[in-house]
């Protein structure tokens, strides 16, 4: 996969909370051949404003274009490329893992090491809630894979700028 070698950008977009706005944003990406790796969207404290976190890959020129094109949309209020700033990123995954016999204790141990929460239990499975950055989720999944992942659902990245400390 060629695009994997290109830098990842986490872009925060504040938009009017109106029907069709998400489609304007995603349409901009698809229409110009820009890549969306993940996307999260929900209302902010102001119900008239939604905040979208988009993770995209592309070189500097593409990212510059993406940000300019986003700004150009009438319903886009603000765009910040968080990759250029100190920020915290989190993703969440819900995963059901096969856990019977000997693997039952091992799966729990992995969950414990990575501070996952068990959200559902059955005699042969555990469902875990994993939060963390992109790398951590990958690490957990790599460790769980050997036991057999039966079901998985993931969010995209959420990101927030760190408050300046001085």
């Amino acid at each position, binding site marked *: 996969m060629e695009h994997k070698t290109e830098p990842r950008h986490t872009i925060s977009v504040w938009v009017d909370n109106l029907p*069709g706005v998400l489609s304007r944003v995603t349409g*901009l990406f698809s229409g110009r051949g820009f890549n969306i790796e993940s996307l999260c969207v929900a209302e902010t404290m102001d119900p008239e404003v939604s905040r979208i976190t988009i993770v995209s890959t592309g070189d500097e020129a593409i990212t510059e*274009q993406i940000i*300019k094109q986003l700004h*150009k949309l009438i319903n886009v*209020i603000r765009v910040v490329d968080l990759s250029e700033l100190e920020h915290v990123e989190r993703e969440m995954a819900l995963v059901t893992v096969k856990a019977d016999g000997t693997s039952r204790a091992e799966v729990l141990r992995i969950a414990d090491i990575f501070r996952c929460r068990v959200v559902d239990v059955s005699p042969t499975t555990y469902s875990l809630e994993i939060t963390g950055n992109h790398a951590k989720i990958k690490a957990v999944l790599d460790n769980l894979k050997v036991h057999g992942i039966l079901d998985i659902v993931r969010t995209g990245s959420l990101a927030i700028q760190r408050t300046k400390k001085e």
Partner: protein
Amino acid sequence: MKMTGAQIFLKCLEREEVKHIFGYPGGVVLDIYDELTRTPQIQHILVRHEQAAVHAADGYARASRKVGVALVTSGPGATNTVTGIASAYMDSIPIVVFTGQVPTALIGNDAFQEVDIVGITRPCTKHNYLVKDINQLAHTIHEAFHIARSGRPGPVLVDLPKDVMQASIVPKFPESIKIKSYNPTYHANPRQVKRALDLAFTAKKPVLYTGGGIVLSDASEELTKFAEALQIPVTSTLMGLGGFPGDHPLWMGMLGMHGTYCANMAVSKADLLIAVGARFDDRVTGKLTEFAPHAKIIHVDIDPSSISKNVKVDIPIVGDCRDTLQQLNDLLSEMPARNWAEAREPWLKTVAAWEQEHPLTYTWSDTVIKPQYVIEKLWELTNGDAFITTEVGQNQMWAAQFYKFKKPRRLMTSGGLGVMGYGFPAAMGVQVAQPDAIVIDIAGDGSIQMNIQELITVVENNLPVKIAILNNTFLGMVRQWQQLFYERRYSSTPMAAPDFVKLAEAYGAVGLRATKPEEVEPVIKEALNTPKPVIMDFRVEPEECVMPMVPAGKAMHEMLLA
């Protein structure tokens, strides 16, 4: 006082000083059309196909500096506008298209003549709206006009459900429109402007490369002043023609695929390229990596996303073209005068030599009409001051090359999208905006057939539009590519055409024909003296090519010259 949606709609148009609408009625806009009978201050021009309504609004906008308006019904009425909207979007033309929509309760039900036109036109409008609440109606309409005409202009679509047009409220009309997330930058950053001027001072071989932004921002005078002050030669894109006088000594002609040898060489050898209101389109740049390889680039554009989109820019300036050029001229006037004519002499001499080496030309024939000759004669007999619209293809390029536009807003052409069938309805719109002007659509026998149904519209409305058909019995430009790059395999490009003279007569217009070179002038003269719509059918050399030509993907200096 309570007003219906339809009344509010027309009141808003009045408040926007709309005098003309191009449109076509249908089931869901009946209420608006009914209200129109009680709105004598707005003239509705009934087209024969909705695409033509949008092109007409486009032509009207360019010729009048106002926002063009089209009004159509839902479903097919709406989808027929898409080509016109996409063309206006590519060319940054301010229009507002109103589409009827099925009643809000039926939206999403696959109702009769229902289509999600807001979804369809999302990527080809500057913005669009579906008005579901009559309380939002007035504000939305005024916002649509505001967005269409401000910043980088463009088309806005407003979808109007039938029940919203029938409902009634006591309306509130906004005094002004402010959109918190939309604030175009008109005033360029003075520091960037100063840096640009410094670069222009040190450059030995500068070129001004201008585009449609000059025309749209009415920056011609400032451009001419700036070019003259610093003695910088000027070339422009198709969209920028007329933005700088075509008979000016600093004028090099159009650049790009069918640009002049001189303009393309100048850009290829320049050490500074000052791009103003142009967007480095592929038809201009040719092979990107070899475009202006020796030049530093200054790029002035009101749309930040145009800057550094295709080529990397050294000095980006976000702002209105006229404002920026004004700032440059103001800075210049504060500085001690320098003899730029002397400083530029070597560069201007080189440019002049290129111009002499390969001027725009064609081989004269005593027996067959050359299409270029027709354009030259049109130019001569209209003193270069007519409003010219074009279709797309060879007719468009010959018009661009041989009608030496002296003033802005004299050329209306579908530059970005390249719509065959644009020119005639656009000419209709221009004639409505400029009732006393000479308006000529320069067409091909192929493209005129794409919206020929509008002949009855111009006859019915006494719009004396002239159509000059360069009839070469081919889809000329495609044929040219087949000749040059596909070993003359003329696949689906020879085409039959109707008898245009009889056709004109059938519609109640006047038809004239020229088959020999000596008939060209009398035909044009007669057409210009006829106060009615006229078709001029010029039977021209069938296999004439537009030259020079930069083959697609080649560098600008790799031109085919003849």
